[in-house]
């Protein structure tokens, strides 16, 4: 199952705080589809997710923003 989260308007630390809380609410194996801006979130969100053992499936540039697909670990 895929869940979406838009953090394009957020700033540090709420970018990766929201991603962590979002991941805590979904089931293992589910995907969190995160919309984010470049710079800080683009660096910190994948880094934080990887550190917690989640898998980054894809990072896409969609013009004005980026999209990262994170699979929740078991």
């Amino acid at each position: 199952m895929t869940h979406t989260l838009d953090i394009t308007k957020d700033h540090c630390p709420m970018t990766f705080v929201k991603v962590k809380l979002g991941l805590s609410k979904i089931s293992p194996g589910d995907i969190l589809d995160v919309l984010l801006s470049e710079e800080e979130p683009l660096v910190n969100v994948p880094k934080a997710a990887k550190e917690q053992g989640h898998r980054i499936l894809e990072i896409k540039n969609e013009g004005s923003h980026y999209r990262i697909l994170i699979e929740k670990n078991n």
Partner: protein
Amino acid sequence: MENETKKLSIICFSGDFDKAVAAFTLATGAAAVNWEVNVFFTFWGLNILKKKQGRSTIGKGFLARFFNFLMGGSKNLPLSRLNFGGISPGLMTGMMKKRNVATLDELIESAKQLKVKLVACEMAMHILGIQKSDLIDDVQEVIGVPTFLEYSKNGQVIFIS
């Protein structure tokens, strides 16, 4: 490095608005990247945790009640500079909202959700005549120096003055 204990302990001595924002930004940021986080509130820092967010005469004894009234709660935290008689924290919160930066209330709420451990100083509470029931329920324990040292052992410690 793999098994390195990632632990951050913050001593929040200050009850200034901007410093409380700094303390909770560090606390939530670290907790969000899976660090164990303890925040120890002492002296002025206790004002951030009072259940009564405005001015109230909590505490035991005339002087304690007087001090607690003057210090107020989380809605009375002054800006450490350019406080302008207390209007600045409200203006700053407005600017934070406008720029989509988390406000102090949002940071505190996130810290709770991320299970940041909030603890209060027994000695400072004793001086100010404050009971654990005067503080928000999220304060897990009232502790002294030995317990803080035990909690912060083998991690990083930051003092916010």
